[in-house]
């Protein structure tokens, strides 16, 4: 039996918010005092048991945690390798892991006395989670969302409206997540006196990558306890999709110290890694640079201009990645593979049929690669996949694609 004691020798980021050479605080001076104030408030909260007591209580009674760890028996049989478990984050209130972070940040915003919440969203899952906690805690919420994403994620736009949030479509650029983030930063710089910026992923300026990771680490901590109880040992590998990378880092972080546990992130490679500006694989197809407050791997051209990238999944359609993933990639502690739109769509349909679960297109990227990993680990092994969100929001996208496939098959 493996060491059941929780280790914590991994100690990133440093005081300046650096994970190795990545991270930092690249923000305009207007925001700098706010970011420093946020950092101080976060460290104060982090060391306050009362803060975590409230967080945990909401996790249990509002979010519905712990989320189940589920043995995906038919998918396991289908692939014929290691046992595949799903960490069922899609069963959380609001249907994804995003709510874990929003609960933490809304408690911090209240603690700081902020009166107005802004957020960016891609797929709309973080927007819905932000709108949800703002309704619960009675704070006005403005969600910036790329106009393209507003179009492809209509059910979530409607949800946010029901929850009382104002969705502000962003038409700059290609109208996706990075443009939404630019606009949210412009709002923040304009409304410094009363506004809290609720970033949805483990990226951006310090302390966000650390803070979001710590809130999302509930995923990995529960997974560790659950697998020890169900299997009596730690898993051989973990796998999760990465856009900004919050569900993956939440899953990975409590296991980083355990060298026997492989960590595998799955980047979206859209139309293919070899298609210029046709993928969203920042690690496998980008290079280090500075955007949105941190140094990390970015999709960029030969003059340092940021590329839009592409993924069928709005939640992965982002030209950067959290700085801790950049660090884990460089050190080799985690491995990052890629998955195309088509592979994700196939995995989406396979999971519906084999497991009776409609996964988010984001999570489908991880599912598409879990077979390779299960075979690599082999029979007798254990692989845990973070099923980060449910796919109801994606059915129109998938239906459109299946229609196109059927159409071309008939012609």
């Amino acid at each position, binding site marked *: 039996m493996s060491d059941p004691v929780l280790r914590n020798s991994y100690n990133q980021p440093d005081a*300046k918010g650096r994970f190795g050479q990545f991270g*930092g*605080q*690249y*923000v*305009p*001076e*207007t*925001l*700098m*005092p*706010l970011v420093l104030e946020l950092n101080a408030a976060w460290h104060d909260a982090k060391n306050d048991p009362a803060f975590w007591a409230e967080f945990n209580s909401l996790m249990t009674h509002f979010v519905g945690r712990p989320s189940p760890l589920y043995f995906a028996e038919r998918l396991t049989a289908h692939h014929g390798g290691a046992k595949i478990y799903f960490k069922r984050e899609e069963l959380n209130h609001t249907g994804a892991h995003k709510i874990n972070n929003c609960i933490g940040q809304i408690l911090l915003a209240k603690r700081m006395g902020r009166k107005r919440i802004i957020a960016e969203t891609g797929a709309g899952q973080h927007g819905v989670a932000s709108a949800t906690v703002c309704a619960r805690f009675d704070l006005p919420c403005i969600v910036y969302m790329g106009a393209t994403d507003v179009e492809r994620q209509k059910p979530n736009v409607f949800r946010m409206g029901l929850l009382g949030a104002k969705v502000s479509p962003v038409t*700059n*650029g290609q109208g996706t997540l*990075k443009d939404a983030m*630019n606009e949210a*930063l*412009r709002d923040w*710089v*304009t409304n*410094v*006196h009363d506004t809290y910026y609720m970033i949805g992923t483990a990226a951006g300026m310090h302390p966000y990558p650390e803070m979001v990771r710590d809130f999302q680490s509930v995923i990995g901590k529960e997974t560790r306890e659950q697998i020890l109880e169900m299997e009596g040992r730690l898993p051989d590998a973990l796998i999760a999709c990465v856009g900004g990378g919050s569900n993956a880092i939440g899953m990975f972080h409590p296991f980083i110290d355990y060298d026997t546990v492989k960590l595998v992130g799955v980047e979206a490679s859209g139309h293919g890694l070899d298609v210029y500006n046709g993928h969203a694989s920042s690690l496998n197809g980008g290079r*280090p*640079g*500075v*955007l*949105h*407050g941190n*140094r990390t791997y*970015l999709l*960029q051209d030969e*003059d*340092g*201009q*940021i590329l839009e990238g592409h993924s069928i999944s709005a939640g992965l359609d982002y030209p950067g990645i959290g700085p801790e993933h950049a660090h884990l990639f460089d050190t080799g502690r985690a491995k990052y593979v890629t998955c195309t739109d088509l592979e994700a769509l196939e995995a989406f349909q396979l999971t519906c049929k084999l497991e009776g679960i409609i996964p988010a297109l984001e999570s489908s990227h991880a599912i598409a690669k879990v077979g390779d990993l299960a075979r690599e680990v082999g029979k007798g092994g254990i692989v845990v996949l973070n099923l980060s969100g449910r796919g109801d929001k994606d059915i129109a996208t998938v239906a459109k694609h299946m229609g196109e496939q059927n159409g071309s098959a008939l012609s």
Partner: protein
Amino acid sequence: MSVARIDKRFAELKAENKSAFIAYVMAGDPDLETTFDILKGLPAAGADIIELGFPFSDPMAEGPTIQRAAERSLAAGTKLRDVFALVKRFREIDQDTPIILMGYMNPVEYLGYDRFAQTASEAGADGLIVVDCPPEEADALSDALDANDIALIRLATPTTDADRLLTVVKRTRGFIYYVSVAGVTGVKEANADAIAEAVARVREAANLPVAVGFGIRSADSAASIARIADAAVVGSALVDEIKHWLSNRDATEQTESLLENGTASAKVLEKATVLAQAVHSARLAAKG
């Protein structure tokens, strides 16, 4: 020359009891030749210092005007090397007007700090403003710029308190840029009364000239800033002239109207002349 060119310019203006007029232009908006025509004409129009923006795809501190200017520039294919080439061409005809490059971190990172500083210096640039590089992240960049005698000009803002001001002014050279409003460029209007105290505070902490920008849109507000600051920076109001010229051009197909529309550079220089006069006569008018 470089940092000395900036110092000399401020010293000359101080001797005349004048505030400096700093004109901002986005390189390559809508094309490089227009920008060169503007640069060429700016000293005669009364610009004491020129801020030359280099475009970035994600300018997170800009309002719509400068965002669109960057988009137009990138759509026209502007590269960083084109921006350096503009500076070089300008230096061949003008050795006295300081040029400050202004933009975002990633293009600088991509080229590399040393190479950026060296190339900028060889082209004849004198200073650099990087909007998303606070002092906490600037040491390596400062080293590279110092080695090439380029001033890293820091920003102070309404959210910069007295303690933080000490961090901001460290290693800054040339002048300090006081961002007069909490917000993006070109949207909120600066209030001269409210910022007079801040300018005095920044000047004392830095012992350098203080330029004020981000919210100056009219000759009147430029004049009121000129009375209290060492320089007034105007960006969006000049860039707007290009936007108007482009929409006039697109709205008409009549040759006569097109002739009336003139050139984009002439429109910008016309506006710059009015603003420069307001800035330069502000203190005399106040005395009179």
